[in-house]
């Protein structure tokens, strides 16, 4: 694991030596996020978002545990208990707004993290499993977020649960029994609410476990970097601490400031007003939309309107699941050996078209399905699949990449010798690492 020049952990006191010989936890931490983890020296700010995602997971777990102390998962009491948290519980409004907006921020930083990986080819060998574990985390996040949104038992909660569990009824024969089994009833009711609460509390800890695997898998080859060139020598890296702890730290401060701004000044901007109406199983809101972070997938679901061999509804559901599942094969769909999009002129253009395409899907998902919107979402859906299944394999076949730098340090130092030793570090001429 890691590079030959990684600094080994050295206990500083008798006590830490005593601990180290019995349970080398400090050694593990030092090697993972301390001075013992060498990181490419050329990381840009897009590499901050993994740490940010970890921070928001922590915020969600802490605020969530607090909210669960005041919430009751009962169809008669859930909505009132949310109002109780907002009005009566000391600082309850802050905990709830932090939890609701924390989910949005968790998704924002995760989406940036995912698109970073897409642009810089972080999913390519030898990091395929890191990418796939990341997708598992993403799927778990979606399940957790969905079930969390049901808990307040407002109109959007209820009808969101109805629509999303309705996906399963699209499957022939087994679909409807599965839906009833998942809900424990014929519509979302007490049984569904209680089990959603139970799972909503469980899944974040499952995510936490997969995050550990994600980081473990990452630390085998080490972090990727904006050039996509492998680390070759010590001069290509810097120890995680203090360099990246400092960079992550100040950037985290910036993002937390943005989080605080939303939390205190626009706490409902990302929510839906209909969820302040208690759930009514006999009346559907005029316009059901999921939370913003699901809108692109909702657009894909709605894009299928014609029965073609299979019913349109089943196509929509299959396409929606497929849009994420195909990402598990990305490492093999994009066969270009060049990782970084910066050195891939054709790929780079199509990457930005994909970003625009996903934004269009998000817009279409949130709009009323007029014929024009449906047509746009159909085109955007087709393009989404074409990007991964047709365009990427073709680009990797025909594209002529730009020449890569000979090493990470060569790419950042531009031949200026003095730059090679900032802060008086790396003063020894790096010996060829073996």
């Amino acid at each position, binding site marked *: 694991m890691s590079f030959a020049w990684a600094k080994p952990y050295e206990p500083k006191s008798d006590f830490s030596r005593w601990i180290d010989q019995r349970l080398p936890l400090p050694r593990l931490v030092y090697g993972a996020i301390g001075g013992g983890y060498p990181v490419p020296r050329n990381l840009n700010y897009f590499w901050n978002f993994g740490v940010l995602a970890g921070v928001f997971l922590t915020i969600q777990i802490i605020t969530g545990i607090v909210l669960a102390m005041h919430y009751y998962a009962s169809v008669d009491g859930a909505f009132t208990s949310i109002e109780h948290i907002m009005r009566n519980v000391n600082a309850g409004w802050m905990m709830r707004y932090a939890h609701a907006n924390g989910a949005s921020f968790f998704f924002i930083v995760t989406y940036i993290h995912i698109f970073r990986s897409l642009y810089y080819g972080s999913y390519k060998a030898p990091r395929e499993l890191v990418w796939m574990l990341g997708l598992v985390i993403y799927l778990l996040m979606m399940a957790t977020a969905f079930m969390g949104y049901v808990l307040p038992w407002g109109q959007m909660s209820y009808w969101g649960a109805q629509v999303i569990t309705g996906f399963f009824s699209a499957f022939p024969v087994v679909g409807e029994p599965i839906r009833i089994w998942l809900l424990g009833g014929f519509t979302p009711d007490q049984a569904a609410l209680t089990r959603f609460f139970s799972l909503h509390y469980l899944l974040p800890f499952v995510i936490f476990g997969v995050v550990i695997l994600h980081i473990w898998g990452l630390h085998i080859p080490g972090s990727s970097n904006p050039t996509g060139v492998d680390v070759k020598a010590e001069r290509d890296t810097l120890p995680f601490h203090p360099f990246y702890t400092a960079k992550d730290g100040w950037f985290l401060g910036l993002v937390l400031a943005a989080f605080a701004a939303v939390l205190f000044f626009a706490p409902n901007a990302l929510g839906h007003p209909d969820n302040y109406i208690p759930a009514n199983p006999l009346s*559907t809101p005029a316009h059901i939309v999921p939370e913003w972070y699901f809108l692109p997938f909702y657009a894909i679901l709605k894009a299928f309107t014609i029965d073609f061999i299979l019913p349109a509804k089943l196509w929509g559901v299959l396409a929606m699941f497929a849009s994420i599942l195909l990402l598990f094969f990305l490492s093999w769909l994009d066969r270009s050996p060049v990782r970084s999009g910066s050195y891939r002129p054709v790929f780079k253009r199509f990457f930005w078209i994909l970003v625009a395409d996903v934004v269009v899907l998000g817009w279409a998902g949130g709009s009323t399905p007029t014929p024009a919107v449906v047509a746009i979402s159909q085109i955007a859906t087709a393009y989404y699949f074409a990007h991964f299944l047709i365009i990427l394999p073709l680009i990797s076949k025909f594209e002529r990449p730009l020449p890569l730098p000979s090493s990470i340090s060569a790419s950042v130092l531009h031949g200026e010798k003095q730059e090679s030793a900032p802060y008086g570090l790396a003063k020894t001429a790096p010996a060829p690492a073996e």
Partner: protein
Amino acid sequence: MATLEQVEPANGQDDGIRRRDFINVAAVSFAGVGAVAVVLPLVTQMSPSADVLAMASTEVDISKIAPGQAIKTSWRKQPVFVRNLTAPEIAAAKKVAMSELRDPQSLAERTKAGKENWLITLGVCTHLGCVPLGVAEGENRGDFGGYFCPCHGSHYDTAARIRKGPAPTNLVVPDYSFTSDTVVTIGLGEEV
């Protein structure tokens, strides 16, 4: 740990199978059967519980529903539409050719004999489960004069059959029977 078993080819078998292998396979299989037996209650606990199933039937008084009117009631916590069709609505439903329908069913198949004006369906859009509009006066009844689902734009005709939009099938007709001329029991005799 205790004693290392020597492989004994003494019993004439030199195919590498020991008597102990049988014990190993039997023990692990037994544990496996036990594990499966424990999974079963863990899975079935999620199915609808007895109290949910106990609400399986509901009685509806239809004496107050004038022709052209409809009511929304609730059965198994799902909305149910009870509509008293007008003569023109019945005629419109009968006029439609079966080939035009996505889910071909005649009005007669969707109502009880002699009670053709009583259209009783679940108020659950077969697309993704929203409640269609069209019961209360003044609500949008869609392009075919039946029900209209606002979520994704499914249009149902006067026999609550799907005509346009993403829903795959007609609104479901639950099992029901006329207990008397003015009372309908929904969910009677239905096995779940």
